[in-house]
């Protein structure tokens, strides 16, 4: 009994870790490869979560819905809508200094939170959406469903990982890194900087949307508190920075590592006396903030630093 409990605890960490790995891979495409600063990960995550949830849930009098589409279609919709929003943000901001992109993306995230709480005909406001299906949910129940979902999440992580690896090594990725490292010389070489940046941002946002969708299907319930910027935006940045920005494997390692640390400290703090439990969440937040500073100053390249692919010459 003890062992099965532990096993399924591990499964839950791996599922959430997989969703974070997706967010990290997406941020790595934007920041690690493209040098674009996205401070509104929570916003794109939220749009993905709500899109996928609304597309797949059944009829309800409380919110928009009744499409009852399969989960895969929901995730596709999530990617599309999140990508579209990313396109709009990027189109406006990429020509300006990266600080402006940060402001606009964080602004979008905050506005979306307002929309989600206020437009209850779509989202059921702060009461949230319930009864969101899981993939293959009609055949499975209980704990075996968790295992299937684990496989589902990690299949998507692997697909995104291979796509990201391919992108990194492609001519497209090389141009992107050239732009990141030296904008002027890339422009002189005839690269359309704005176009590359917009594409990068859109791809990243679409993946963030998928991650949002997956989290909605995992918890089967979605409320505005699920898109807390602390848990989504900040934590993902710390994960990528610690794991190694520019390195896709580093992104996954960072996501799993930091998420395990975050969850393990929860076990520890839950044993504290009651008045300290609420405080402990602030202490954890404080530590995440400090960890980010340490990583920024001492381990900027992360656990797995970026390694440019070797040059290959055609014979």
């Amino acid at each position, binding site marked *: 009994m003890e062992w099965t409990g532990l096993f399924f605890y591990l499964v839950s960490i791996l599922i959430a870790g997989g969703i974070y790995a997706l967010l990290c891979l997406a941020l790595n495409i934007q920041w690690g490869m493209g040098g674009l600063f996205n401070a509104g990960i929570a916003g794109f995550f939220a749009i993905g979560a709500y899109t996928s949830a609304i597309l797949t849930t059944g009829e309800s009098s409380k919110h928009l819905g009744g499409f009852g589409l399969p989960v895969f279609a929901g995730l596709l919709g999530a990617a599309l809508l999140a990508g579209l929003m990313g396109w709009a943000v990027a189109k406006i901001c990429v020509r300006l200094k990266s600080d402006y992109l940060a*402001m606009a993306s964080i602004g979008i995230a905050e506005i979306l939170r307002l929309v989600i709480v206020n437009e209850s005909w779509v989202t059921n406001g702060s009461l949230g959406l319930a009864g969101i299906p899981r993939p293959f949910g009609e055949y499975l129940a209980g704990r075996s469903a968790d295992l299937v979902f684990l496989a589902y999440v990690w299949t998507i992580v692997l697909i995104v990982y291979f796509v990201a690896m391919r992108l990194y090594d492609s001519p497209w990725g090389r141009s992107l890194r050239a732009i990141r490292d030296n904008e002027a010389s890339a422009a002189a070489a005839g690269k359309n900087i704005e176009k590359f940046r917009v594409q990068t941002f859109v791809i990243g946002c679409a993946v963030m949307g998928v991650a949002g969708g997956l989290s909605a299907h995992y918890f089967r319930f979605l409320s505005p508190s699920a898109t807390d910027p602390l848990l989504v935006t900040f934590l993902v*940045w710390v994960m990528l920075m610690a794991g190694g920005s520019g390195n896709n494997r580093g992104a996954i390692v960072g996501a799993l590592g930091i998420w395990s640390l975050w969850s393990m400290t929860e076990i520890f703090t839950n044993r504290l006396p009651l008045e300290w439990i609420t405080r402990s969440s602030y202490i954890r937040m404080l530590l995440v903030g400090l960890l980010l*500073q340490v990583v920024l100053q001492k381990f900027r390249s992360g656990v797995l630093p970026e390694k440019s692919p070797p040059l290959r010459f055609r014979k």
Partner: protein
Amino acid sequence: MIDFINFYLVPALAIGSVYALGAVGISMIFGILRFAHFAHGDLMTLGTYGVLAAAAIFPVNPLLLVPFGMVLAIVSALLVDKVFYRPLRKLPTIYTVISSFGVALIFRSLVQLLWGSQNQVFGSGGVRPPLVLFDTFRVSVLHVQAVVATSVIALFLHFFLSRTKTGRSMRAVSDDPELAQVAGLDTEKVVRWTWIIGAALAAVAGSFAAMDTSAHPNLGWNLLMPMFAAAILGGIGKPMGAMAGGYIIGLAEELSSYHWIGDHALISPSYKTAVAFVIMIVLLIVKPQGLFKGRLL
């Protein structure tokens, strides 16, 4: 008409003062240190709680205790700059932006840890009687105080920036940092003064915002977006522009929920924050250097 002045125009000027004071700091930091300071809102919160802590000890008008908050904010800003921002100064500024996100988190969690996360009100919490002028205008005393204080601060700031040596070097560094350094200006001193002024004004702004409603750990974070909009509107590196920007954003937000057409609010009050954001987006598309010829970084 009278309702318009009592319930929309005067509160708009009051919230505009808060934005103006906050935006000055953001604009100066962006102009001189070249990065968007995302911890500015939480610096405001910290300053506000400094005033709140002093108010718990001294039973006087909380306005007299604002200097305590200013000192707390200044000390924290200088400390954060020394420990967290300065080691990153040689890198691309985007690293400092990321660091400031972490600092925002640190400030907020410290406030929650030390003072808890519940809403707190200044003084006895009772409603103070409004000021009645000419039997028709009823305005809150606090709103008048906020507008007057901001005007006085603007005057002093203008004097400081145009007449004193430090103020002039600040403007010089903002306009052209390399040239300023070559001319032998003490850049570190300029940076120090930027933080001192920015943090002090942030504490004042936060205190007014908290006295108007209540103090809570997300107070400053929620004000960040309109303050950025105000700073961009006024032109980065233009403190007086940021002041004007603050009032424009404040007016736009409050007046957007006035029933201009028909009986309903033009825009639902719950979307007030979105107004500032839309203004910012339009600016970024049309005129990213702002209204007063600020610099485009």
